[in-house]
Every structure is written in structure tokens, then in C-alpha cells.
């Protein structure tokens, strides 16, 4: 049984690495369809990353070592995050390294390094992006933790695989508290991944951008890693959402067959989630930066409502 656990672990990480750019491309394709544009190929993100790896890296003269190491650290934290989220199976050797709270800490580490790197060269855009990113972060993090708290209280554990197992294996029960937190989680996902109501991934207008502003000074392999890490982050968030709200179809240690079955199920979930994400983004307008706190405060309130519902109704 140990061998299959390690196999699941390796498979999950490799699948996340390989599928993350595809998921991003799928979201872009859906967005293009919804706005009546012709979409770029689904392989476009891979081509972009490959091209960037071949290019010469250009660094600003006053970029420090922190600027050069940050892409690797951000990428590394995202890979570890992919390893601890149960996307296909819940029996994973690495999950004892970090429970759900530590996972939030891991995502915060990536955010802090990204922001510090953005401040390193000392351009107006970089510091602007870093400031906005940290602003979104400090509002989104409590909301995300409240979401995780509700799930943890229902399952009385903070280990993400145990939560998934608990929710996936019990007889079908509807949790009104989880419905509230699912809304909150979706809002956090949009904010944390620089999606439309909070940030616009397609823009290079300085007044509207957060995430892109932080990457302006990066080029070549560093930029490739940063973009890949951003795709991985979206993928990871989607998988956290599945683990909490759509846990069905994940292998809970039943053996190789269930693991094989979980792969198309994950693909299906991702396809649906990508479509839904594109729909939300198409239907909503970009908020002014100072409306973002209100947006995230709403997310936080939804999570708190979920918590209260759980405590009052025990459901």
C-alpha cells in the first residue's frame, strides 16, 4: 500500500505541473468563446513558457540576489502546495508536512517573496504592485482561513486529506454552512489569482493591474517560472475548492482502480470549474482598487456566516 501512496503523490505533483498551464489556457479559451472572440490554441501557455526558457535573462543593474532567487522560491512553494492538496488521492505521504493552516502559510510565503522581489528593483510599478498585492492578501487570507475553519469544524481536523475523506465518504449530507463558505472561497479565489473583479490578467494598464505590475522587471527563465507558478496557483486553488466542496471521486485508499478513475473525474471538475470561472469573469466588471477591500470583506462575511450557521444549526 505504501508504494501506491508514493505513486499517487508523484502522479499528483507531475499532473499539477503539466496540467496547470492547460487549465489556464482552458479558462482563456472559455472567456474568448463567451466574448465572441477566436481563442488562442490551448498549447499557447506551453509555447510561451518554452520560448521564455530559451531567451537570455535580462536583469536590472541594481537587482539583488533576492530578485533572482524569488522565482525559484515561489515556484517551489507552489509545487509543495500541489503535493499537499489531495486532488486525486487522499493517502499522500507529504500531507503530514502541512495541514490546511500550513497550506495557507505556504501560499502567504509565496506572496511575500513575490512582493519583496517586486520591490527590489525600485520602480514605481513594482512597489505599486507589491503594495496592492499585500493589501489583497491581508484581506483574503483571513477569509480563506475562515473557510477552512468551517470545514475543519465539521470534520474536527485541519488535515486537508482527512477533511476530504470525511466529506467524500459519509452518506450524502447537505451542509448549508459549506454553501456559504463556497461562495466566500470563490471570491477569495478570484482575488488571490488576479482574476477579473479584483485584477485583470490581460491588462498592462498601470492603474488596473496588481499581479502583472510585480512581474514587469522579470524576463526569460525567471518570468517563465513566475508565470508557471501563477498557473500552478490557480490550479492549486481550484483543487483546494474541489477538496472542500466537491470531494467526490477522489481515491480514498481503495487501490489502483480508484486512482485511475479519479484522473478523468479531476479533468471533468477542472473543465467545469474553468468554464464557471470564465463565466464569472465575463459577467463582472473590474472593480476600482479601493472597492477590492469591500469585495473581500463580503467574502469574509460569507465565511463568518457559514461559521455561524455551522455553530447554530450544527450543520
Amino acid at each position: 500500500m505504501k508504494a501506491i501512496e508514493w505513486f499517487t503523490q508523484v502522479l499528483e505533483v507531475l499532473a499539477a505541473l503539466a496540467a496547470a498551464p492547460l487549465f489556464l489556457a482552458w479558462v482563456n479559451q472559455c472567456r474568448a468563446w463567451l466574448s465572441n472572440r477566436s481563442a488562442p490554441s490551448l498549447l499557447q501557455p506551453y509555447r510561451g513558457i518554452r520560448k521564455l526558457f530559451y531567451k537570455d535573462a535580462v536583469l536590472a543593474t541594481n537587482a539583488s540576489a533576492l530578485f533572482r532567487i524569488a522565482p525559484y522560491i515561489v515556484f517551489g512553494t507552489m509545487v509543495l502546495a500541489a503535493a499537499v492538496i489531495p486532488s486525486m488521492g487522499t493517502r499522500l505521504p507529504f500531507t503530514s508536512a502541512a495541514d490546511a493552516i500550513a497550506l495557507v502559510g505556504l501560499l502567504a510565503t509565496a506572496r511575500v517573496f513575490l512582493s519583496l522581489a517586486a520591490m527590489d528593483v525600485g520602480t514605481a510599478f513594482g512597489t505599486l504592485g507589491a503594495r496592492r498585492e499585500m493589501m489583497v492578501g491581508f484581506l483574503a487570507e483571513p477569509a480563506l482561513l475562515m473557510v477552512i475553519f468551517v470545514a475543519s469544524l465539521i470534520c474536527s481536523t485541519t488535515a486537508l486529506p482527512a477533511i476530504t475523506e470525511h466529506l467524500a465518504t459519509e452518506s450524502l449530507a447537505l451542509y448549508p454552512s459549506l454553501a456559504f463558505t463556497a461562495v466566500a472561497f470563490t471570491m477569495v479565489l478570484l482575488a488571490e489569482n488576479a482574476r477579473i473583479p479584483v485584477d485583470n490578467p490581460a491588462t498592462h494598464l498601470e492603474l488596473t493591474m496588481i499581479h502583472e505590475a510585480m512581474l514587469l522587471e522579470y524576463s526569460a527563465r525567471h518570468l517563465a517560472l513566475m508565470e508557471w507558478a501563477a498557473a500552478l496557483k490557480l490550479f492549486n486553488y481550484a483543487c483546494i475548492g474541489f477538496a472542500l466542496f466537491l470531494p467526490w471521486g477522489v481515491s480514498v485508499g481503495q487501490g489502483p482502480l480508484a486512482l485511475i478513475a479519479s484522473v478523468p473525474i479531476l479533468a471533468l471538475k477542472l473543465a467545469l470549474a474553468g468554464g464557471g470561472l470564465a463565466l464569472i469573469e465575463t459577467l463582472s466588471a473590474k472593480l476600482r482598487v479601493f472597492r477590492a477591500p469591500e469585495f473581500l470583506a463580503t467574502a469574509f462575511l460569507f465565511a463568518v456566516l457559514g461559521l455561524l450557521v455551522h455553530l447554530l444549526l450544527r450543520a
Partner: protein
Amino acid sequence: MIAAPSALDTPLDLALALLGAWVLIGLACLLRPGDARWLCRVMFPAGAAVGAALALLAAVSLQLPAQQQVLPLGLPDLPLHVRRDALTDVFLLLLGACSVGISLFASGYFRRDQGAPPGLVGLQYHLFLASMGFVLLADDAYGFMLAWETMALSSYFLVTTDHRVEATREAGFLYLLIAHVGAIAILLSFGVMQGGSWRFTFDAMRAAQLSPGWAAAAFLLALFGFGAKAGLVPLHVWLPEAHPAAPSPVSALMSGVMLKTALYGMLRVAFDLIGDARWWWGLAPLSMGLFSAVYGVVFAAAQSDMKRLLAYSSIENIGILFTGLGLALVFQGVGMSALATLALLAVLYHALNHAFMKSLLFLASGAVLHATGERNMGRLGGLIHRMPWVAWSALIGALALAGLPPLNGFVSEWLLLQAFLFAPQVPRTFVNMLLPMGAALLVMAAALAAYVMVKFFGVVFLGQPRAASLRDAHDAGPMERLGLWWLAAGCVLLGLLPAQILPALRRVSAALHLGTAAPAAAPWWSLVPLADRQASYSPLVFLASVAAVVSLTILVVRTLYHRRVRRTAAWDCGFGGLTARMQDTAEGFGQPIRHIFQPFFAMRRELPSAFDTAPRYRVWIGDRWWRGLYLPLGGAVRGLANAVAWLQQGRIAVYLLYSFVTLLMLLACVL
């Protein structure tokens, strides 16, 4: 503080001897009062050695049973009692280990004339250390208050080292005033706790049976007194004034260690001396702590002076500590000893963590201050190139204080959140509802701490230098580096080895009558506070896997592709003409926080008009407590004093009349 030389065989004797050694070192500083080199080359390293010995002793004796002793010192018929148990040892360890780094740094720091003569600084510094140690060891109210007051006075003189500056004298006075208001409350609390026996040893207080009303009074008085020393809002106003005024090693010692002695006092009173705590007492430190945590971190985000920023961040961390203390009290009061132990462990671990990381950052800011002469972050920047040693150690401190894994700040926050998460099992519905909200506030404070640390490190060390003079900033000297790296290593080790350190701290829960819950079985690399499958965290696996992925990625990228790098001017979207003034200043970086938390601040802004030829933008951030509480209080005291001054007519006849009336009244009483 002298142990008989023949009987240096118990840890208690040794601890007293080491404190005595600190006093002797302090006195030896007076041998050459004007000689800074004597102080730096000999005295501070000797003090560091004593600190290391004390830390080692405390770490070893943590496993030993408690000991008591009566010293042949003190007033006639009032000998001093001393005692050490596991709680004392944890805080002695904190004091010893932190003072090593700070003393090493100080030996490179006090180079120039700082105002007060070096010999006096050395005396006060070592007296300060020794008195903090004796606060921890004291076992009666006399000894405790004696050490407590020595600590307050010696630190007052250290704060006012640079006494030629008026702002420093004012800050010192404010500190002394609030320290003494707090000391009066502590004294009164001891007075209540002796419970009519009129014996002021701690043993008598443990034995005293207090009525619930008096016990609550003693608890609240202690909370007020120790809260004033610790800097709980609204008694926090001295912290952001005193910390920037003091020399940096002194700020580090005060913020890192002295604030923890107040936590020690609160733990000792709440869990040990009063004894049977009611669960609802815990709600007071819990709510004050949560408020302080959020308030402190919001103000930290708005500061532009780096030492004020760190001082407000200390208020935040004291808030977190008192939150945990309150939570432990609630759990203990309802009889959930396993969770109470968990909350207590989180508090102790966070105290250790905060001591290391805040000392580290204060020392780093001291090194920056020495190199540049500038405390205002708006005139710093880009120092990672000029001061790499300081910058990289400050990065460790900043990441730790931001609560990021795998460093130490995360471990204690994680433990505290675990304790919060299982709080809904408390059999009080009302508390059940409120505690998860508390957890949310705590998380917000932690996330804002990350904001503050990005601001601190990013504005001071990254970017372009904001002033031309920064180009000749020099890095810290060898002794200063040693001090910085000692503390940074402490942060890393506390972050990576919680599974090894926490079981040792479990002895404290027995010392504080919380029962001895056996820890859950877990592999040696994994931290499992309650039960397996419930929650676990392994910082070693965490660090190893991130490091493995990072090095593997570097290796793969370099072998599959290339490692070519070109250096050129910053791209900046191709606009060109990039200057250092285009970066965010400290004010700019704090702007979202000022915007979101506007009601917290008393803010005054000076906006330029459209026709200004030399436009200036200024913003003042003030504390609402000044206007709301302190100024009215000060006015009332002054009014009262003026009213009493009416008695002082300045004419001899009036004073004779007073004597005459007094005499008549006394006679009336006697007859």
C-alpha cells in the same frame, strides 16, 4: 543576590550566582567610567558569556523538580525568598539566550559618546539584566517588587542614555510614569492576594482562600499592572515613544525580554498564585489581547519611523500573547486541560519566538541607524547592496515575524489557531460563538503583520537608495554580525525543531497546575499537538521539500537551457527617467491601511494646492487614545492638583492655623 560559595551545587544557587555575576560586571564597568573600549571589548562579551551560561543552566534544569530557598538578605525579619520551577526556567532561558545576542551586538555598538558615560551605561545594562532575572526567581512580594522597580529604573536610565535630546527625556518620563502606575496596581494585587494572612511570600498567597470577588479583583489589578508593563492597549502609549528613543540594544532588550517578564508575572499570578481561576476571567485578557493585536499591527503599518514600526509590532505580539493566555484561562476554567496546555504552550513558544525575532529586527535597525544616521524609512532604501549581512539576517527576522513557514513565528501562531479551532467544544454557547471570531481577528493580525514586514524590509533594504548619502553606508562590524546571526539562528532553530522543543515546555503545564496531558505519539520530525490525523506540521519536511524543488529547478533550468544573464538599466515599461523618488515611500506603502482603517487613526493631512510652486504633502498619524484618554486624565490630575494647591497659601499664619486645627481635631478624637 549572593549565594554561599560552598553550596553552588543546585541550579537555583547557580542561577543566583550568575545573576550576581551580572551585577559584578555592572560594577566593574564603573572602574573605567569614561572608557568605551573597556566596556565594549571586555564587559559586554563577559555579560554575553554569563547569559550563555544562564541559558544553558535553564535548559538543563527545565527537567528538574522545583526548588525553594530563603536568602540571608533583605530587611530584618523579612528575608528574600527565591524559587525556581519550570515556568521560571523557560523565561530564564529566554533571558539568557536573547541577552547573548544582544550583548554581543552591543559590544560593537556603543562606540561613540551616547550622552551618558559608557561606564554608567554598562552598569545600568547589567543591572537591568540581573533584575529581570531576579523578577523571575523571586518568591515573595518584597523581592518581586524590589527587582521589578530596579528593572524599571535601570531601563529608564538606559532609555534616557541620549538625555541631551528633549524628546528622549519626554519619552523616558512617560515610560517611568506608566511603569509606576502599573507597579502600584501590582502591589495592590499582591495586597489582595495575601488574603488576610499578612504574609507576603508566594506560598502564603497560594494557600490563601480568597472569596470570588476578591480573587477577581486581584486578577484584574494584576492584569492592569502587568498589562501596563507589557503594553496592552490602552496602556501602550509609552512603547512607541520609548523604543525609538533608546539605543538599539536597549530597545531590543526591552521589547524582546522585558515585555516578557510582564507576561511571566501574569502567568504566575493567574495560574499559580490565585489558583482556582473562573473561566470568564479569561475573557478580559482575551479581548484586550485581540484588540491590542489588531490595533498594534494597524498602527505599525502606518508608521514611517522604523523603530516606531517595530514598537507597534511589539504591541501586536503582546496582544497575541495575552490572547493565548486568556484562551488558556478559559479552557482551564471549564476543565479542558489538554486544550489549556495547548494554548499555554503556544503562549510560551510565541514568547520565545518573539524575543528572538524582535530583538533581531531592533538590532538590525540599530545597525542601519549607525550606518546611515537615519530612522525615517522614507530616506533609506537599497541597503541590501551596501549592508548584505544586516539585510539577510533582517530578512530572516522579517519573515519570521510575518508568521511564514518554516520559520518560528508560524509555529506559535499555528499552535494558537489549533487551540482556537477546538474552542467550540467549550460548554458555554455564548463563548462558542465568539471564539471563532477571535480566531478570525488573530488571523487578520497575522496577515497584516506580513504586510508590515514587507513594508519594513522592502522600503529599508530593497529598491533604490532614496538619499545619495546611503551609497557610503557600511556594513555592521564583526561583533554586531555575530549578535545578529546568533538571534537569526535562534529564529531558524525554533522554527525547524518545535517537535523537539515543545515537549520540554510541557513541564510548565504541570508547574501551573494544568495537569500533565501526555503528548500524542508522532514521528520525531512531525509536530502533532493533539492527535494524529487531526493536525500535523513538519517544518523539516517542509523546508527540505521546498529546498529540493528549488535546487532541482535551478539544476534542470541550467542544464536543459542556459545560464546567460545580461545586466542593463531597469526596464520600467520603457518610460525611462526612473528616479528613486518614484518608489513608494513608507507613507505611500501604508496608504491602503490608512484608507481601510481610517477610524483607528487621528490623522492630519497637509495637501498642496494646485498653484503651489513648491508642493509638499505631509501626513501626521496620531493615536486616538491620547486625546480620548490620556489628555483628559492628565487635565483632571492637574485640575485636582491646582485645587489642592489652594491649601498652600504661602503665609505662615495659615500654616499655623492648620497645625492648630489639626491639634484640636486630634484632641477631640482622644478625648
